[in-house]
């Protein structure tokens, strides 16, 4: 297996990515597909803003608007933000803890392909009779009565990609618990690894309720069950609870990795140890814990009663405490540091006030009596875009800029990056700040048009202009990526010059086995510790030896493909078509056949031999 250095043709590269189990390549797959869905979701957002630019607009019809709106939310949360988060996690976490790969490389690949086919399935609804149109929350009282197959695409597509997410979460949990390099204790893990750890636990506990909800919805819609049908003795509120028991942790699943990325960036570019590391860890765990006790604040107006509302309101406000701890720690990290304003740092600095504004409106919404006023208005829309775009998207943009050299070995242009940053940030505030006031003035959310002379005209126009600025920023970023990739100027280990954690101690991009010898960690920010002692590289924790690597496999693709095929059969089965049952059977045969091959065929992987590793000039002294 020493052919890895050979130049490959295009077909071979495609095959390589289809069969890869390498966490770094899976990260790139997540990045590409997440980026693609981000663009699709962004286009849907642009259509929404064009429709709402002027009163009584007829750019899209009411029904089509519902579909765009639903797919914008669903795509952005499940198919853009989640995979982009996983892209950064896959690219960085194994390197940060000094591991050669994740614990289950095969499962990692399977998780990606399940997500990918689920996402494609969901988006094919556009071409197959209409997309889901009951909002990304798909409340049962609405979605059970939705005509066509839109909601069925939603149910089956999310079920598929949910499997993938659950696998990825479990994989990271096992990786972080078991595969840390010698000396990497829990309290020496970088904050991004910590947030990945907590997020994976949240995924483990939050996705099963979604799965249950989707299964019940599937039975209601496809097999005539009555779990949510009030007229038949069901209870429509159960869906709302199940959805939000998943849905609220989900927003922490998205934001905590962004917090982790920002923590790394603040420490790196302030050239200072993260202020209050242990309190940051504590706050991350506490946010994860409290995230499970607040879901009913999405349902204050459902009629839970004053006692339940009060309990959930107080629990929600409690979350502001650990979040506040984090905000102050970031500020104190910068305080007295020698701050360098690179593009990732610009995002990080801009994130603090932006996210704080989203947090403050969150507290406003958390007080149940006031929520009756804000409910279902643009105030809510402004709030969650401030936390999701101002937190998660800024975090992902910062993370992609920050880790781009580690993933691809090239530096994105700082100048174009700054253009993206400023247009995106200004565009974002232009779009969403005014929506607070539109909401307070009474503009309802999820409505496809508004009347003239209600005072909404100017605000909506400003909002649309801001949306175009954001789109321009993203376009510049795409151009930046293309230019950088064409130029292909390779950089060294530590292109930012101030790397603190293990990932900056190895080449960019890292060799496929990551660490020739597992590094010895001697403190928090291990690479920084070594640098401060005048060393250029990590001390190895083990003698140079053979490295055991997993084999590539096409089976993850076929397993996911089989379920994708079966999902089409299941979707049309309720139409009493004769071809659906064979399709289901064929799909499941592909899936279970692939699983059988995986189980029966012994696959012990391969070894990279010591002699091959010693070829280098450095004689294996480098960790």
């Amino acid at each position, binding site marked *: 297996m020493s052919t890895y250095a050979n130049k490959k043709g295009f077909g071979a590269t495609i095959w390589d990515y289809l069969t890869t189990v390498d966490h770094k390549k899976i990260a790139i797959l997540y990045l590409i597909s997440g980026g693609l869905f981000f663009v699709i979701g962004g286009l849907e957002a642009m259509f929404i803003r064009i429709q709402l630019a002027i009163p009584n607009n007829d750019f899209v019809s009411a029904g089509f608007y519902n579909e765009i709106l639903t797919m914008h939310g669903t795509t952005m949360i499940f198919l853009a933000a989640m995979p982009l988060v996983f892209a950064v996690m896959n690219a960085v976490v194994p390197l940060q803890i000094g591991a050669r790969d994740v614990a289950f490389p095969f499962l990692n690949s399977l998780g990606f392909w399940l997500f990918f086919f689920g996402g494609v399935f969901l988006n094919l609804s556009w071409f197959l009779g209409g997309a889901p149109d009951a909002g990304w929350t798909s409340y049962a009282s609405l979605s059970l009565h939705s005509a066509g197959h839109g909601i069925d695409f939603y149910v089956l597509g999310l079920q598929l990609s949910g499997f993938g997410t659950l696998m990825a979460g479990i994989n990271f949990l096992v990786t972080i*618990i078991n595969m840390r390099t010698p000396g990497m204790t829990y309290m020496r893990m970088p904050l991004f690894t910590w947030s990945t750890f907590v997020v994976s*636990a949240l995924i*483990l*506990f939050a996705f099963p*309720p979604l799965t249950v909800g989707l299964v019940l919805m599937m039975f209601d819609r496809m097999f005539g069950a009555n779990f949510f049908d009030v007229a038949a003795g069901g*209870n429509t*509120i*159960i869906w709302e*609870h199940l959805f939000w*028991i998943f849905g609220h942790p989900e927003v922490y699943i998205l934001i905590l990795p962004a917090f982790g990325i920002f923590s790394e960036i603040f420490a790196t570019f302030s050239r200072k140890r993260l202020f209050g590391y242990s309190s940051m860890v504590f706050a991350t765990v506490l946010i994860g*814990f409290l995230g*499970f*006790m607040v879901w*009913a604040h999405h349902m204050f107006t459902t009629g*839970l*009663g004053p006692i*339940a509302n009060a309990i959930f309101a107080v629990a929600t406000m409690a979350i502001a405490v650990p979040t506040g701890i984090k905000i102050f720690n970031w500020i104190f990290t910068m305080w007295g540091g020698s701050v360098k304003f690179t593009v990732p740092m610009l995002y990080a600095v801009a994130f603090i006030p932006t996210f704080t504004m989203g947090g403050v409106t969150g507290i406003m919404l958390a007080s149940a009596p006031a929520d009756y006023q804000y409910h279902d208005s643009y105030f809510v829309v402004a709030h969650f875009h401030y936390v999701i775009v101002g937190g998660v998207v800024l975090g992902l943009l910062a993370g992609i800029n920050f880790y781009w050299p580690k993933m691809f070995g090239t530096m994105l242009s700082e100048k174009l990056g700054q253009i993206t940053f400023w247009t995106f940030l200004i565009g974002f505030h232009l779009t969403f700040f005014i929506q607070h006031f539109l909401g307070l003035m009474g503009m309802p959310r999820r409505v496809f048009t508004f009347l003239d002379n209600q005072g909404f005209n100017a605000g909506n126009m400003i909002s649309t202009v801001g949306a175009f600025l954001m789109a321009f920023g993203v376009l510049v970023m795409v151009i930046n990526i293309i230019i950088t990739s064409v130029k292909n100027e390779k950089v060294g280990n530590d292109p930012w010059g101030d790397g603190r954690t293990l990932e900056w101690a190895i080449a960019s991009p890292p060799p496929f086995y990551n660490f020739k010898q*597992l590094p010895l960690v001697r403190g928090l920010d291990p690479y920084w510790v070594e640098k401060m002692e005048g060393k250029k590289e990590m001390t190895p924790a*083990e*003698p140079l*030896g*053979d*490295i*055991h690597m997993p084999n590539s496999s096409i089976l993850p693709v076929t397993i996911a493909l089989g379920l994708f095929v079966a999902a089409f059969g299941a979707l049309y089965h309720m139409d009493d078509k004769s071809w659906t049952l064979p399709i289901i059977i064929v799909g499941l045969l592909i899936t279970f056949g692939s699983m059988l091959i995986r189980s029966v065929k012994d696959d012990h992987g391969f*070894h990279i031999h010591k002699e091959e590793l010693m070829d280098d000039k450095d004689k294996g002294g480098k960790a």
Partner: protein
Amino acid sequence: MANEQSNSANPNVDLKYRRKKNAEEMKHQVITFVLMIFFTLLSFAAVGIEGFSHWFIKPVILLLAVIQVIFQLYYFMHMKHKGHGTIALFLFSGLAVGLITVLVFTTIVWL
């Protein structure tokens, strides 16, 4: 991996210490086993003997059941041994999430 050295499963190391440990373990398991049988008999007795009210029987049986689960986890499934901290953490946080959900569903969904 080639560089990992593992000797913890070697039965010839510290034979005497291991013997003693195992004997102690066995004693614990026998005691908990006897207690669990006893609790089960108690539960049957509580239902079988007339004169106890429902308000007494139900909590007592539930309490005995919880104790039995703890015995099962800690003595028979070795959770009291070292290195099970993470497992316990995830088990109990999963339990907490599940119980909160059940609690909410029984109190505010089906009034």
